[in-house]
């Protein structure tokens, strides 16, 4: 317990310096600014804003990134409530009742409850990271190459479970991602693989190009295809303050949502969508009058928003302790950390405690900042959402281009982003989600390295993966997951959930 307080106080001493508070604020503000745009999810937002953190020292850079992430998630909820057009899949649920509340002139309380719920979940999440981080990192020190490899297999399999649409296509996208991650100079032999004689490719494909192309440009083109059909709830945001009854009704859902979200967040695989969906279903089941749901029930905003944020927060646990990203957003975080010269994982916690705990404390600060700063700014977001998309999107593309360019000060990344934009557009048109690809892309080189090392140690005996108990356990879980998803009944249920959220 004293250790926990010690860690957190170290963290807050880092996070609460003026300089870091300012970076946290800029991150939250910019994250919300881009995240509010309809049709732009957190992955695209982070990819776009990533380059501005490159010139900063590691600690402020990571603090700003965490701020961008929370700002982007919060911006997604704002859009869901005001425009009925979720910026990210986990806000889909918020749309259902949040938008209805907005139409009844109660957008203010809906946004306030979303912020309060997220903040509560964020607090719980932060404490959990501080509690579970150190013991999990201890465990990770016991891991050998075989365990890491099996854990990555498990992570990739779990990512498939929640990919929209076809399972097999999601597996294919992971494989393509792994392959793309291998482009560039092979560390062992020094051979430039798949560079086709292009010198820029021998350093590998920049992950900013992949993320920006597939999530930024690909999504923009899809949005342009769908046309401009959005109805902004600009009539009246209404009073911000939720009434006493609102607060009392939301308390239970927020607590239950946080609990659900925490559990789903720690599991490998990106589970924010499932977390908010299960919270919504649970609240609907528990309600005395379930018919109110879908017509502006405040519980339908409070629970899922808390669940979503709790899952977003706790998904940092596997990343920071084991070094394994569990979803597309976490994959981006790995990329950002690598650029800063930090390898995410157990070493980070012991070697750079100020950075690690500072980042965790700043997560909490960021959540608080969103409540304090964004609620008064809501009327500004409303005005901002009135700008037509046809004026906004060229500017978004411009900032993506400058961002991609400034990674290496070379146009090569920009050309690559254009190629991935086209690829991403067609891939999602043909029912292949870009999320698993990005995850595979980040894990590709790591998987190869650990596979090589494990096989070298075992002298070429592949049974090492099943004879070491932790590794075997993880592979068994992965296999079970695959069998369960393929089982007809689960398959049907999964399709229901996933398709509902995709609509």
């Amino acid at each position: 317990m004293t250790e926990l307080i010690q860690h957190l106080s170290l963290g807050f001493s880092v996070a609460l310096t003026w300089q870091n508070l300012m970076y946290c604020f800029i991150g939250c503000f910019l994250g919300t600014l881009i995240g509010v745009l309809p049709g732009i999810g957190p992955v695209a937002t982070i990819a776009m804003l990533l380059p501005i953190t490159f010139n900063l020292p590691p600690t402020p850079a990571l603090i700003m990134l965490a701020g961008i992430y929370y700002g982007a998630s919060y911006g997604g909820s704002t859009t869901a409530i005001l425009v009925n057009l979720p910026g990210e899949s986990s806000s889909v649920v918020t749309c259902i009742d949040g938008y209805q509340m907005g139409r009844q002139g109660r957008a203010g309380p809906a946004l306030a409850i979303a912020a309060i719920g997220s903040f509560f979940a964020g607090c719980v999440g932060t404490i959990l990271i501080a509690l579970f981080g150190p013991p999990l990192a201890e465990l990770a020190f016991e891991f050998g190459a075989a365990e890491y490899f099996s854990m990555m297999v498990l992570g990739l399999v779990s990512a498939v479970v929640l990919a929209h649409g076809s399972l097999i296509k999601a597996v294919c996208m992971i494989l393509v991602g792994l392959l793309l991650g291998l482009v560039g100079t092979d560390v062992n032999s020094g051979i430039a693989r798949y560079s086709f004689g292009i010198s820029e490719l021998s350093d590998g494909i920049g992950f900013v190009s992949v993320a920006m192309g597939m999530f930024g440009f690909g999504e923009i083109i899809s949005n342009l295809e769908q046309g401009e059909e959005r109805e902004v709830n600009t009539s009246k945001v209404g009073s911000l303050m939720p009434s006493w009854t609102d607060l009392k009704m939301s308390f239970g859902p927020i607590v239950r949502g946080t609990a659900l979200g925490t559990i789903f967040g720690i599991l490998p695989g990106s589970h924010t969508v499932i977390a908010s969906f299960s919270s919504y279903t649970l609240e609907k089941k528990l309600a005395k009058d379930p018919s109110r749901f879908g017509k502006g029930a405040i519980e339908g905003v409070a629970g899922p928003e808390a669940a979503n944020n709790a899952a977003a927060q706790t998904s940092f646990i596997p990343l920071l302790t084991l070094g394994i990203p569990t979803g597309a957003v976490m994959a981006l975080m790995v990329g950002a950390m690598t650029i800063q010269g930090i390898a995410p994982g157990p070493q980070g916690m012991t070697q750079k405690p100020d950075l690690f705990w500072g980042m965790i404390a700043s997560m909490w600060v960021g959540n608080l900042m969103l409540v304090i700063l964004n609620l008064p700014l809501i009327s500004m977001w409303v005005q901002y959402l009135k700008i037509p998309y046809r004026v906004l999107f060229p500017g978004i593309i411009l900032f993506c281009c400058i961002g991609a360019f400034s990674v290496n000060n070379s146009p090569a990344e920009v050309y690559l982003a254009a190629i991935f934009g086209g690829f991403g557009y067609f891939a999602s048109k043909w029912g292949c989600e870009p999320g698993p690809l990005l995850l595979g892309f980040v894990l590709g080189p790591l998987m190869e390295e650990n596979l090589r090392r494990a096989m070298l140690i075992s002298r070429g005996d592949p049974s090492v993966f099943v004879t070491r108990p932790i590794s075997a356990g993880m592979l068994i879980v992965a296999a079970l997951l695959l069998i369960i998803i393929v089982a007809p009944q689960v398959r049907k249920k999964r399709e229901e959930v996933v398709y509902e959220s995709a609509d």
Partner: protein
Amino acid sequence: MALKIRSLKDFSAGVMFIAIGGVFGLGASQYPMGTAVRMGPAYFPSILGWLTVALGAFVLVESLFVDEEPPTPTAWRPLILVLASVTAFAALVNTGGLITATVVQIIMSALGGHEFKWKEAIISAVLLSVAVWAIFDKALGLPFKLFPWS
């Protein structure tokens, strides 16, 4: 029974995966394979590449038997103009300078929108040029060339 493409989505996706997997699988033959103990640079990519081809083939075969709605028609105009504007930016940024690249990129991509208004496009090109100059040149001090003559 004549074979017919019942799901154009799966058919296209299958072809795409076979092509990508094939490029990596075949490309790996240029590099040393190594052994299971000392894996060469070709080892892991060839496994992944051929696995992608196999799964892609499965998706392709499935597309002949499972009915699915066809994909929405390709939006060629935004697709081409958006990607062309990005390419133009990449081509111009080092030669013509950041401001030139910005103006060309903004106007080209705006042409890909639903409604194009010259006045709006020119105003946003001017405003964004000023913003880009202020943010990246003045505030962040990144080493950009601004104009063709600078």
